[in-house]
């Protein structure tokens, strides 16, 4: 089933981590397997923030293979070595769990080559690479993941998130949402639904040099939009194309460093409730997610079939 949520404050920075946590926790019943956050904050003086993992959470319910911490240490060393070879300078590094890291790096060359090199290390995946995006995902509900990664105090303007019920792929971080729009920095996607054209679209994108890290159909949307944007197609245009070119039932949210978008398939088979005011847009699979931000009586509506909307910060 899965639950998705997103919000964007126009011209205002707030405690975005806490707000999204509350929204996603309200949607826990739609998907308790994993939770993911894509938070857009103030960045770090124009340097890249790279969130990556070198292994999986092997806790209860995980479908991942158990590995020793020393394996993670070895992979981290390889990543550090590759960064040096690429000419990237590590400004700051944090180890958040035994298998996941947050690096601030200085780098000014091609991101695709960069990503390929880093992800050549076994089990290593860049979760996000951007100047304002911080993408965090792990097993458990919104409160669990937020506490684990200290997201409650993260400030920012907008965010999207996902509570996942694993259906077509494993219970692991690799298949959890959001997905980074590799290799387009600061772009992320969350999705509720099923894409029936997954393999056709994936093969076409792979022929164009795009990479897939999972077999989760939702990743396709992120890669699809990133490929469009790499070719200079505006986000909204790419999203409108997706309504025609992707087959299945879906509602998805996409975020970039300064915008938040929503698209719904032509069958309108997946839910989305929208609240819009002059200074805030909030979306959720169910209204109860929005009610965590706005407990007072508000006007909301369901976007219609084939509808695409994009808002700016």
């Amino acid at each position, binding site marked *: 089933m899965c639950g998705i949520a997103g919000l964007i404050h126009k011209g205002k920075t707030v405690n975005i981590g806490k707000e999204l946590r509350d929204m996603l926790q309200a949607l826990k019943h739609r998907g308790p397997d994993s939770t993911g956050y894509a938070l857009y904050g103030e960045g770090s003086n124009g340097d890249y923030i790279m969130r990556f993992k070198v292994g999986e959470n092997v806790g209860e319910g995980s479908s991942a293979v158990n590995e020793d911490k020393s394996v993670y240490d070895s992979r981290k060393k390889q990543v550090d070595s590759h960064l040096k070879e690429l000419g990237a300078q590590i400004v700051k590094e944090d180890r958040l769990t035994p298998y996941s890291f947050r690096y601030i790096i200085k780098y000014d060359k091609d991101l695709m080559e960069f990503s390929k090199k880093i992800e050549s290390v076994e089990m290593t995946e860049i979760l996000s690479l951007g100047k304002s995006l911080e993408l965090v995902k792990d097993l458990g509900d919104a409160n669990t993941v937020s506490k684990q990664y200290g997201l409650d105090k993260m400030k920012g303007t907008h965010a999207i998130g996902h509570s996942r019920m694993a259906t077509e792929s494993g219970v692991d971080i690799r298949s959890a949402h959001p997905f980074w729009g590799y290799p387009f920095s600061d772009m992320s996607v969350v999705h509720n639904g099923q894409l029936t054209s997954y393999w056709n679209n994936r093969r076409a994108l792979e022929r164009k040099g795009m990479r897939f890290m999972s077999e989760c159909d939702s990743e396709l949307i992120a890669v699809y939009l990133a490929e469009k944007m790499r070719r200079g197609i505006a986000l909204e245009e790419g999203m409108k194309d997706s309504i025609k070119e992707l087959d299945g039932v879906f509602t998805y949210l996409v975020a970039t460093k300064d915008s938040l978008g929503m698209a719904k398939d032509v069958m309108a088979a997946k839910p989305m409730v929208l609240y819009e005011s002059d200074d805030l847009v909030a979306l959720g699979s*169910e*209204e*109860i997610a929005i009610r965590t931000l706005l407990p007072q009586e508000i006007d909301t509506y369901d976007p219609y079939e084939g509808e695409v909307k994009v808002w700016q910060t």
Partner: protein
Amino acid sequence: MANLKQVKDSKAHSMGLHKEVLTGRTQQVFFNSEEAENFFYYGAYDVDFNKRTEVDVADKSCKELNGKLNSLIEEGYGTIVVKNPQGKHSLGVGILNKLNLIFEGSLGYFAVGSIDGPIVRITGRVGWSCAENMMAGKVVVEKNAGSCFGAAIRGGDLICRGSVGARTGIDMKGGTIMIGGDAGIFTGFMMQRGRIIILGNTGPNLGDSMYDGTIFVGGTIKSLGSDAVESKLTSLDIAWLKRKLKVAEIGSDFDVSKMTKIVSGKKLWNYDKLEPTEKKGAI
């Protein structure tokens, strides 16, 4: 299918205001206003509409509220006001009693589903599948509604003053759904009986695969679904629409004579191959 034992050929009958006594395989029993006991379910409570109370559900789960509603009905409360529903799911479901129920705010999914008899007013909006499987009664939603509004209803009046999402009245088998605004894709999908009135515009595939029933549209229709066809609006239709909208208190100055009437083309299913009695029941 049912045999019609008694059919009166009158204007009221054509408008659906008749009483029928059905025999045969069907379990369906039509309402007979001359039999007072038909007003109540066995075990239903006699409530006093002047006996009024309020329940705040800000800190209550849907299970707690629904249990509370049952106990208040049992105590004879005929008017219950529910405060701060805050979009919670499955509130006010399974009420098989006469009751005046008011929700001050918005409800989530499956609001007032499987009800039979109460009059419900919701001052906010509702999520997906409001009043699903409603048998009788009246539900008024003051703002917008999500998808599957009135899915599989069997009777009663379901009114949304705002706009509704996709698949409104999917699989409905009776009753009337009235929409003050627009409706999304697949409105009236596979409907089998009953009527839908939409004062605004509709999305694509209106009335797709409908078996029977009627849809009236005041605005534009993006496209008709498979087997949905336009039919002539009769004077009886116009009289019925006027009366229905007046009772529902929507579209008071709406010119119903310009509405478009959509019915089933009956080409998807070969009705001619049905046995005569079944054919009669299907029509």
